[in-house]
């Protein structure tokens, strides 16, 4: 489903974020990407939706070589991925419903479908009663659940999450972790980057440990 072949990423100033990385993730896996901050977890995740491009090597997602993808093809790659960003990237001037609706509007779903799918996604993360609320009135855990609802509303086959439990109380973090597990159980391939793996370790099928841009066994 996702495979990295001898991937290196060098940022300007000769900073090697990833060096000669090779691994592959099969459909239905739940992979934990761990390591200290600065180990290259975020960079690795960003290579998958082409938010960053590899300096060397190839990143294959769903049989497509992302590193060689044309600019015009990138939007269509992203529509098949569910992304949970480290900084959540919620739109605070829109309602909960409108935030979740955004990926569907972008992909051009007809209005009837949109409402049904948004409600389904909000229901899964337990925010159905808050659809008219503004994100700012939600708690930290609820905001993270909102970000997850937006990521899964498209029913993507792959869900990528960057530090989804950061800045959350333990109770909230456990809740979030079980959400990811639930998605994985219905067949979604899940990749989670976290420096705090205790919430996920019992659910993950595999753990990739990054250290200074390399895989540490």
């Amino acid at each position: 489903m996702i495979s990295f072949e001898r991937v290196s990423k060098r940022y300007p100033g000769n900073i090697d974020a990833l060096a000669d990385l090779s691994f592959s993730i099969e459909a239905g896996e739940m992979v934990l990407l761990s390591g200290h901050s600065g180990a290259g977890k975020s960079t690795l995740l960003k290579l998958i939706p082409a938010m960053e491009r590899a300096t060397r090597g190839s990143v294959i997602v769903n049989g497509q070589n992302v590193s060689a993808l044309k600019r015009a093809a990138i939007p269509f790659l992203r529509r098949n991925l569910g992304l949970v960003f480290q900084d959540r990237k919620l739109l605070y001037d829109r309602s909960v419903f409108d935030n979740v609706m955004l990926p569907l509007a972008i992909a051009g779903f007809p209005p009837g479908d949109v409402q049904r799918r948004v409600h389904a996604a909000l229901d899964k993360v337990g925010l159905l009663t808050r659809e008219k609320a503004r994100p700012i009135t939600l708690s930290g855990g609820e905001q993270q659940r909102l970000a997850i609802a937006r990521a899964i509303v498209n029913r993507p086959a792959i869900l990528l999450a960057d530090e989804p439990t950061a800045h959350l109380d333990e109770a909230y973090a456990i809740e979030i972790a079980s959400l990811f597990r639930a998605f994985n159980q219905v067949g979604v391939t899940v990749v989670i980057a976290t420096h705090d793996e205790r919430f996920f370790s019992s659910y993950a099928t595999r753990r990739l440990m990054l250290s200074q841009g390399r895989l540490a066994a």
Partner: protein
Amino acid sequence: MKLWLFQHRQACALALRKLRLAPFSTLLGVLVVGIALALPATGQMLLDNFLLLARNFSAQPQISVFAALNAGKNEIGAIEARLKQHSGIKEVRFVARDAAIARLKEAAGMAEIINSLPENPLPDAFVVLPHGTDTAQLEKLRDEISKWHMVEHVQLDSAWVKRANAILELGHISLALFSGFLGLALIAITFNTIRLQILTQREEIELSRLLGATNAFIRRPFFYFGILQGLLGGGAAWLIVTGITYLLRQPLNELVTFYSFDFSLQGLQPMQTLLLFVAAALLGWIGSWLSVGRFLRNADFT
């Protein structure tokens, strides 16, 4: 196709919402566009009316033939006969010098001046209506008559029509230049409005890209915004021009009755109104196209 329509409707609705949510800046934007469009449109309207008025004058070119002051009755009769027989002339009206001065005396303040004159300074004259309106032909006729015996001067009334045409031509060129500059200004205005909007929505645009939005999806609402602002501005311009027409019509009518012309100030013609709106929408679209295009090229947040 249905989806395409739906996406466009959605983008249009979004643009409308943006206009509605910021009524003050919308009003300002529309006013600026409206005034910028109203200036050349008013110019066109006035020019068209001038043209109409000019046609009113020159519908029937006239030739005034003035006899020499010392011409006797027989010589005048000879001129009249030759004019009446001429194949290029449709109608001849004789204006006797006595009748002419009598008419002049009726004009306010002229009687005293004329009475103080030792003798009648006016010559006998003929007002000639020629066949056809071709300027070259008329000029030939004028030159021919002026060579006749006891003809002092021949005045072709179309000379001023030529001058008026030259002025009109100048007016058209100035107006075209003026419109061109204001068109550029309009593009710049829309460009800037859209640029400011993009800046305030940067976060949303970047997020949309990360969620798989194509450039077309991002552009669309801004295009609609540019077009809608242009159309509203076009509406404002139309109101301004129509208002000016309405305000000028009454005083102009009073003025025109002095000269006994059949003339009433015309507003913009339907075709011109259509053109006004099309130009407004087009300029708005170009402005937004340039603005969003520049942003998408420069912002390299893939």
